[in-house]
């Protein structure tokens, strides 16, 4: 039986680990390698690491850092940040990364998705959509370059197009919910989930493991990622790398997943 995935997402900024709020106010939370070591011990399902400087500052991916992370990771690693070409993607895979995440490039040069997928296989190509709700019209739109540039692109249409081009997974990253710890944008998740048949991972807003549970209860097999929840503890947001223990995870899965979904999916 396949299980939903619960995924910490780490942001790298100026060689350190940070956590943002609505993509702003990066707060230093520690050293990336040290965090990976802790997440190894906690046996996390997967890990997403995003370099939030690379695309915005038009930098090459930091291959040395990626290699160090991939070497340390005992779980599957998805890396994103600054990937512009097939050659860069190939090089990152050769460092031992299982999945690469593309965001700005997917909007600017969508055809590259197909090229990369042909080379590395669809299963390893992830498109992250940074989504913001437009204050004026109330419509969702995709932003690029770490949330600094609005594109007017509708994420629902875009997700469908990305699937056609050969993407293996879509990640929704809600800019409005980022760091708020008040729950996921379920409306946005439902809209995208409706229209794609590739795996979906959602990010932005988790404040408790019940927020994660709610997404799983609604959608079954899905990836649920969180930043703040897994790096902060308590109402004063003290830095503490954490993740549900295997017993806590089993209880979460039992409560939100097995009860509702297992009769439906198993014959």
């Amino acid at each position, binding site marked *: 039986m*396949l299980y939903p995935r619960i995924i910490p997402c780490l942001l790298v900024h100026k060689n350190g680990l940070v956590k943002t709020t609505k993509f702003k106010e990066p707060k230093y939370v520690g050293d990336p390698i040290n965090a990976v070591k802790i997440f190894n011990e906690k046996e996390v399902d997967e890990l997403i690491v995003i370099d939030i400087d690379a695309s915005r500052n038009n930098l090459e991916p930091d291959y040395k850092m990626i290699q160090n992370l991939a070497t340390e990771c005992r779980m599957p690693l998805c890396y994103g940040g600054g990937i512009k070409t097939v050659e860069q993607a190939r090089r990152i895979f050769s460092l031992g990364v*299982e999945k690469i995440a593309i965001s700005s490039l997917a909007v600017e040069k969508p055809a590259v998705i197909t090229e990369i997928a042909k*080379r590395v296989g669809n299963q390893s190509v992830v498109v992250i959509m940074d989504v913001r709700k437009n204050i004026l019209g109330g419509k969702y739109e995709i932003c690029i370059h770490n949330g600094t540039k609005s594109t007017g692109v509708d994420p629902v249409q875009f997700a469908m197009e990305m699937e056609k081009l050969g993407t293996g997974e879509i990640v929704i990253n809600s800019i409005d919910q980022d760091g708020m710890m008040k729950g996921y944008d379920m409306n946005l998740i439902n809209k995208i989930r409706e229209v794609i048949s590739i795996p979906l991972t959602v990010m932005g807003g988790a404040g408790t493991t019940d927020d994660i549970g709610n997404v799983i209860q609604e959608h079954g097999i899905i990836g649920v990622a969180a930043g703040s929840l897994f790096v902060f503890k308590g109402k004063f947001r003290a830095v503490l790398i954490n993740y549900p223990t295997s017993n806590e995870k089993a209880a979460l899965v039992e409560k939100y997943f097995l009860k509702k979904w297992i009769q439906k999916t198993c014959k």
Partner: protein
Amino acid sequence: MITIIDYGLGNIRAFINVYDRLNIETKVAKTAEDIAGSTKIILPGVGSFDYAMSLLNHSGMRDELEKQVFDNKIPIMGICVGMQILARSSDEGQLPGLGWIDGNVRLFDSTTIPYKTRLPHMGWNSINPRNSIGLLNGFNNESKFYFLHSYYFECENKDHIIATTDYGMKYASAVKKDNIWGVQFHPEKSHGNGVRLLQNFSNL
């Protein structure tokens, strides 16, 4: 000593790390000379079928690899696409595979998969080992591993299937023929179970 074939695909370092922690020696092979004298070989892989085959064909290692596997009967284990290229062909590409285990690689029939989001098969799934011996020593049908693939190995001889996994259908998630093993999942990224499987391989 475990020899890990570095033909430009897959997480070589992750295997080395696991074996380092187990105090088992490893060696990375980039040339035919590096392979000579191996006692156990791992053929890793992350990528598409044709890309894997063309890298292996151009690596200069294929002949020596076949010599070790068929003349010297050295145990070898293919991982993920490294397992798939043991087959004759794949729906994913045009190039012939190694053809070491009878079978072809097929795209999952997504209409049989009872989830909204179907392919790739991504995440932690359990295996059903035929016997908890050898490579699968210590595992049962609750043992979970990390999977990331859209194609599966369609084995022609059922005796070569040592474990199955359920994803809309039961398919071969681990195969074995003589001294050749293949696993569809990623033991190098499957925490404790993965470590145990890699240790089992070393103990074969």
